[in-house]
């Protein structure tokens, strides 16, 4: 990890609990974010199984959950179930099915309290039958966060935490934390910028991504970046 100026307490925390290096990870242990350019930005060229991904969204219609569902779909490619821990009781499976996640591979868990939700997440992350766990933990103590990370590691499961930008200045035990902000759509295609805050291979600006009608992601340009926009875009 490159030297990052420590500006906030979160930066200090993040520097103190760095992404653990485990060099023996093969390509099968890494889940693609769905976009090659975004994968390149990440230390592991994707998100490691057995780790947590935090997808922070600026606003509740921004695309943070979309990117998490996308990663979940990729994690399910090798089998296993997707466990959705939904305290709010607002997850709509029809959308996930349209993303290519078969409904019979989804398990929806609706605890009535945040406390039970964390317990359920931990249980699911530890299970060898689960490929990914998707949840919306709004408040996480460092200890609870750490427990989730350990559970993911133990089970080899991908933990997807969709949170609001409020979590940005809180410490993280996630391998990857990115911030998703909405951008104006283009020709009916949804766009958003993704800024990797943690677990990036190099400190760089945000990426402007576009999702097509099939949910496939591609990079449109690099934002706040010295490289000319789109010059390295792959066909």
């Amino acid at each position: 990890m490159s030297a990052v100026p420590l500006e906030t307490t979160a930066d200090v925390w993040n520097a103190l609990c760095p992404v653990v290096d485990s060099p023996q990870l093969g390509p099968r242990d890494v889940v693609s974010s769905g976009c090659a350019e975004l994968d390149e930005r990440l230390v592991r060229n994707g998100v490691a199984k057995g780790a947590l991904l935090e997808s922070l969204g600026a606003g509740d219609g921004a695309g943070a959950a979309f990117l998490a569902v996308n990663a979940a779909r990729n994690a399910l490619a090798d089998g296993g179930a997707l466990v959705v821990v939904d305290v709010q009781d607002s997850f709509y499976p029809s959308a996930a099915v349209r993303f290519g996640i078969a409904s019979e591979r989804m398990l929806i868990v609706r605890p009535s309290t945040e406390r039970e939700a964390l317990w359920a997440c931990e249980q699911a992350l530890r299970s060898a039958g689960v490929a990914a766990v998707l949840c919306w933990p709004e408040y996480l103590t460092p200890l609870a966060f750490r427990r989730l990370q350990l559970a993911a590691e133990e089970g080899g499961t991908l933990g997807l935490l969709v949170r609001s930008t409020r979590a940005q200045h809180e410490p993280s035990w996630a391998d990857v934390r990115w911030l998703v902000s909405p951008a104006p759509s283009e020709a009916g295609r949804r766009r958003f910028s993704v800024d990797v805050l943690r677990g990036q291979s190099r400190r760089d600006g945000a990426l402007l991504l576009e999702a097509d009608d099939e949910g496939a992601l591609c990079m449109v340009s690099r934002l706040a970046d010295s490289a000319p926009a789109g010059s390295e875009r792959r066909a």
Partner: protein
Amino acid sequence: MASPEARALGVTSGMRAAEASGLKGITAIHLFERDPYADRRALEQLAAWCEQFSPCVGLLGTDALTFDIRSSSRLFGGEVPHLETIRRAFRERGLQCRLALADTVGAAWALAQFNRQTVTNVAPRRHASALETLPVQALRLEEKTVADLHSLGLERIGQLVELPREEMAARFGDHLIKRMDQALGTCPEPIVPYQPEPVASARWTGESPADRWELLETVLDSLLRRLLEQLPVNTGIVRLRCRLQCEKRDPAFGFTIGLVRPTTQQKRLLELIRLQWESLRLAAPVSGLRLDVAETGIKATRQNDLFPSATRDDPRALADLIERLSARLGRESVVRPRLVREAQPELAVRYEPVVGTKSLAGTKSPPKQKASSASPQRLWQRPIHIERRPIPLLHVTASFPLGPPARFQLRGEEHRIVRTWGPERIETSWWRGRMVRRDYYRVETSDGQWYWLYRRLQDGKWFLHGRFA
């Protein structure tokens, strides 16, 4: 009661045999004695079948069933769709029914019996006014009481409510007061769940009550062994009911343990009971215990695929997880979605509990679905988050009458819409006396957020139904 075939010939319920024999097309009439015992058996069987709609089904009188649907309605997409599902299921079974939903058992019974509608849905806390116009018989009174009331010109419940209680009690007995209080909710009337005969059961009464898990564990161990010995070969437990009797606590209470696949593993059952036990936090020691096997299944020799697919699948690990989650959070809180053909988005997904269900626990694996049955173009038609109750939006302006929305307000915040996709018109057939007709729009606001809005076509009101988070 008359079947559709009989009705087609002109037979109605309550008709005399002599009248019916005169109808055209009727050649012979066979009369059957009313058999209360058989009726009761049939009602019990119906109650067992109805456990798919509610975890708590009770019998009421000779011809009524009561459901507690507080916790289970969200599996069906809310109270209204829940009622509709029940109505349809009865119809598909060839049964006529009248359904009423109200805050109290008494009010629901009264409305189902005396409100001549197939479905009556009384809003929370509105049951008292709904009862006012009903006849006094709707209070489940003895015939003599009804006759006494009638002789005084008291025919409607609304008239009784205004009378002084003491006088009424003195004149007509406490029973009338109790029935009124039960209907109005001032006196609680719990639904006593109907429970079919258990397949096997075992009980324990302790001379010295158990206050620690370690003590209880020994007891449970021996009870479970006795239970499992009673089961036939190759049969495992799918649902286990535990009833606890606590010191100084009356009546007994309990919980149910569900399994994904039939099991005879004592250790496993004990662990699931422990998970429940931990969340109970009992104040008093346990003095009595009873275990009933409520449902069994044939143990599959081969592991069936709970979640069909490739390498990472570990059905046993997943079944373990599901059973643990269900034991701690409750059966209704651990569900699998199933997409059904329904135009109305709230009803397009059914949620099915995974444990304690015979069909799932059996050897047959769930019907395979295509991974993506929807065409890819329709990917963005449905949002990731949906509001269980669509949020009414105020101050929505449209660019032209009946056109797409241009701006809306949400939680006091103004949102300007820069792009819209739609409308997608959704219409359903008859529904609680009126149709659901909506024009859905996917909208992008000026700050790039995507929402799912609809206009209710009947009155032009706007609602927020989802977020493309």
